[in-house]
């Protein structure tokens, strides 16, 4: 039987605020245990939550970026369960009325665009951390993370493969960074995905029983976990078994998912509106204020790049982050052939940044320098090889491309009369190779080209040289 995979993703994006969602404690990552857990975070008797305006603004910003509707009135609810990293015995979240409803994200898989619908995005607080290492028979609880604002973004079950799931997660990751609501640091847990995975016979329109895979903190783990889970589910069904709805954890070391027993009995969360928090009101004027401060979104940037002659693929790559898109846009400004320039960004520049572990913002070649370099290729001044040399020199801090070209005398010989003269000299001085070529030995031709290149110290355009030689030798 053929199977279809159905995936929905729940993403927890930590909102990049200075203080927590309901307290004035700091949210910085990596502080010593419990030094950023204030009275509200550790749920002392009598303390109360007060919501952070900036966290709400960031949620609205997200809603606007995905074309969702912003609920003018949303409600914070309590999700009740016992866990040592949950100090109040409940998590403040939004349940029936989230702040952001609907919306969509466009993703690209194998060059094709796909629209993934979003169900909702709601505000909630993060839990603390349980440290299982280091104590015999005990688990240590660090509540520094407790109360960090989270935006939980829930997709519809629109994804049909692990690849699509990864494309969605990457797209969402790029977006939350783009609009500056989340630092996207997956290693530090700022951006975490849970995947709801089920399978069904191809062509069926009913959903199979799903399992929820928790805490996928890298795109690779997301992909591997889904692939494993799909195989596991298909095997069970094909062996005549049934899938149990459950929470599973991806074990990267074993590359498998396994059932999480501890969360199994806690399914009755007894949600109810938090009586400590009044309805959250988001006035139209505030929404407009947030909208007017929004940067141009990736979608718009992509369209602008395609209009400049880039392929949709190139445009997609260059809008993977706001920084890269801004660099690219700066480089394209006034460029004769943006598409060629785009190749330099996605090619040589990306490779160099990658080699040196640098971010685009730390590029040693400025957009203007890259544009100047590309212009010298277009006008025939530089060969590809020369261009690489100039690129390296700019990177090394030797100055602008034109200065380097002048200093190193790197002008390509494109004057054909001069080249023809050199070609004639080479033909005259290499009678044997000419003879060999004429008797059908192609290798001899390459040797002649090499002689010309040598004579010009590499400044000739090799293509032009071979054209001239062919013409002369044919004559």
């Amino acid at each position, binding site marked *: 039987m053929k199977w279809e995979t159905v995936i929905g993703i729940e993403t927890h994006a930590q909102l990049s605020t200075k203080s927590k969602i309901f307290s004035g404690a700091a949210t910085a990552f990596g502080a010593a245990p419990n030094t950023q857990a204030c009275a509200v975070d550790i749920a002392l008797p009598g303390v109360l939550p*007060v919501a952070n305006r900036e966290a709400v603004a960031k949620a609205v910003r997200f809603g606007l970026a995905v074309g969702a509707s912003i609920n003018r009135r949303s409600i914070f609810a309590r999700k009740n369960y016992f866990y040592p990293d949950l100090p109040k*015995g409940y998590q403040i979240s939004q349940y029936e009325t989230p702040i952001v409803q609907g919306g969509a994200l466009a993703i690209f898989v194998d060059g094709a665009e796909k629209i993934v619908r979003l169900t909702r995005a709601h505000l909630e607080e993060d839990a603390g951390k349980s440290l299982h290492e280091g104590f015999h028979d005990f688990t240590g609880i660090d509540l520094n993370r407790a109360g960090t604002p989270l935006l939980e973004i829930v997709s519809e079950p629109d994804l049909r493969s692990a690849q699509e799931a990864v494309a969605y997660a990457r797209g969402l990751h790029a977006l939350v960074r783009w609009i500056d609501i989340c630092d996207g640091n997956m290693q530090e847990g700022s951006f975490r995905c849970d995947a709801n995975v089920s399978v069904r016979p191809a062509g069926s329109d009913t959903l199979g029983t799903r399992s929820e895979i928790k805490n996928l903190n890298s795109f690779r783990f997301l992909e591997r976990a889904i692939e494993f889970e799909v195989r596991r589910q298909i095997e069970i069904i094909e062996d005549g078994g049934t899938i149990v709805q459950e929470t599973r954890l991806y074990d990267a070391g074993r590359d498998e998912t396994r059932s999480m027993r501890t969360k199994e009995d806690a399914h009755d969360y007894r949600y109810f509106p938090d*009586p400590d928090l009044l309805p959250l009101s988001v006035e139209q004027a505030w929404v407009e204020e947030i909208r007017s401060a929004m940067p141009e979104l990736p979608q718009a940037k992509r369209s602008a790049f395609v209009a400049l002659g880039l392929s949709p693929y190139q445009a997609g790559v260059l809008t993977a982050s706001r920084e890269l898109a801004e660099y690219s846009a700066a480089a394209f400004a006034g460029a004769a052939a943006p598409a060629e320039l785009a190749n330099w960004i996605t090619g040589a520049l990306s490779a160099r940044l990658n080699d040196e572990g640098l971010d685009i913002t730390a590029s040693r070649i400025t957009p203007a320098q890259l544009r100047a370099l590309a212009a010298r290729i277009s006008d025939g001044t530089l060969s590809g090889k020369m261009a690489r040399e100039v690129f390296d020199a700019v990177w090394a801090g030797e100055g602008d491309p034109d200065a380097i070209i002048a200093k190193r005398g790197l002008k390509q010989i494109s004057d054909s009369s001069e080249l023809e003269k050199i070609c004639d000299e080479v033909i005259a001085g290499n009678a044997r190779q000419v003879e060999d070529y004429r008797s059908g030995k192609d290798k001899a031709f390459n040797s002649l080209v090499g002689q010309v290149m040598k004579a010009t110290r590499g400044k000739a355009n090799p293509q032009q040289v071979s054209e001239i030689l062919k013409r002369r030798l044919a004559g």
Partner: protein
Amino acid sequence: MHNATISSLAAELASRRLSSVELTRHFLHRIKQLNERYNCFVTLDEARSLQQAQAADGLRAEGRAGPLTGIPLAQKDIFCARGWRTTCASKMLSNFVSPYDAHVVEQFNAAGAVILGKTNMDEFAMGSSNENSCFGPVRNPWKEDAVPGGSSGGSAVAVAARLAPGATATDTGGSIRQPAALTGICGLKPTYGVVSRYGMIAFASSLDQGGPMARTAGDLALMLNVMAGFDARDSTSLEREREDYTRGLGQSIRGMKVGLPREFFAEGASAAVTKAVDAAITELRKLGCETVEVSLPNMKLSVPVYYVLAPAEASSNLARYDGVRYGYRAPDYADLTDMYKKTRAQGFGAEVKRRILIGTYVLSHGYYDAYYIQAQKVRRLIARDFAEAFKACDVIMGPTSPTTAFRIGEKAGDPVQMYLSDIYTIAVNLAGLPGMSIPCGLDGDGLPVGLQIIGNYFAEARMLNVAHQYQQATDWHMRMPPGIQ
């Protein structure tokens, strides 16, 4: 000295005929002598109290004293006070020394008032008799085998027995007004949102409200001036301009319209209570009030609604007591779940556990709509009844409690009977309105009866005005329990 009101003590302090240290010592001495009998204080810290008194005298010497500077007051043990053990009368918090001050405590400290000690209460404010305390029951000075009411029984008795001139209290379903009525003192529950709940240990967040207890309406006004006010740390605290609640005390109440809800006088209240309340209404007519009959048809539903909503909120509010970060932890357990279960089974008393179980049930899957949502809808109907009634009157009056103080143990085995003792007070919390109780008579056994005054939202000053005028014409609030000199 201990029989004086806050306002007269304040005058004594202001005239420097009396120092705060002297006054505080006097009350501490009385407490030492009498607390064993009444069990109304659960934590005392003489050194700390005297240090505050000294500081208050210092402020006065510098000419920086306010109206309450140097006045010793009792704090209900539900208010967190830095450095003070704060227990909510629960074994769960029996070792909890608060690292911070509640807003109310902060306000009194800033006003230069002295904390005399922390008062007994029903555990986590759940009860109407002050029998649900890990420190044992509080005794009513009017009759020592009778309850003082609850949950603020300790505060009420501290004031009634002249162990403190005033005390803080909280009211979720009647916990200020009912004990005030049963001990012959005055108590005011303000409009929801007027007094910050920050640092006031939560029972049912949408109903809890702190307020003062004292012997006169004038003293309540003085205390409320300190307690009320906006606090950014409580999302439900209201941003309003500061009010001087003493400003209208002396005004005439001629022409004030007093609404008498049919349902308050129909049945349920004992004959003695009805008689005393009727007499009070007659007195108010003499003072120029007009009475008008009003109706609160859904009031009878307030007890059932309350016993859905309050336990639901409580079941969640009390989930933090898990033995992890503070408070009691069971000594022996097999694993984490066992630790939770034993800690909570041993740390909470029977009534608290009962309410947590009720609350957990009504919020659980499949019951939420039928119980919780339905209760919230009926809550709105009850609030609408009041809105309708206030179209025809300025204040509403009736009995505070259907009976006078009952015997210790009398209702302890029957939670439903106990719950019904708040029949007249609960609706006020559901609507979020201000309510108060003032003494208005004694029954045949010489036990006090309370008159309940309910105002519209933010009508505290008006309620205090009518209460004060009544107290100018009567002396029920001056009566002392037998045996108190």
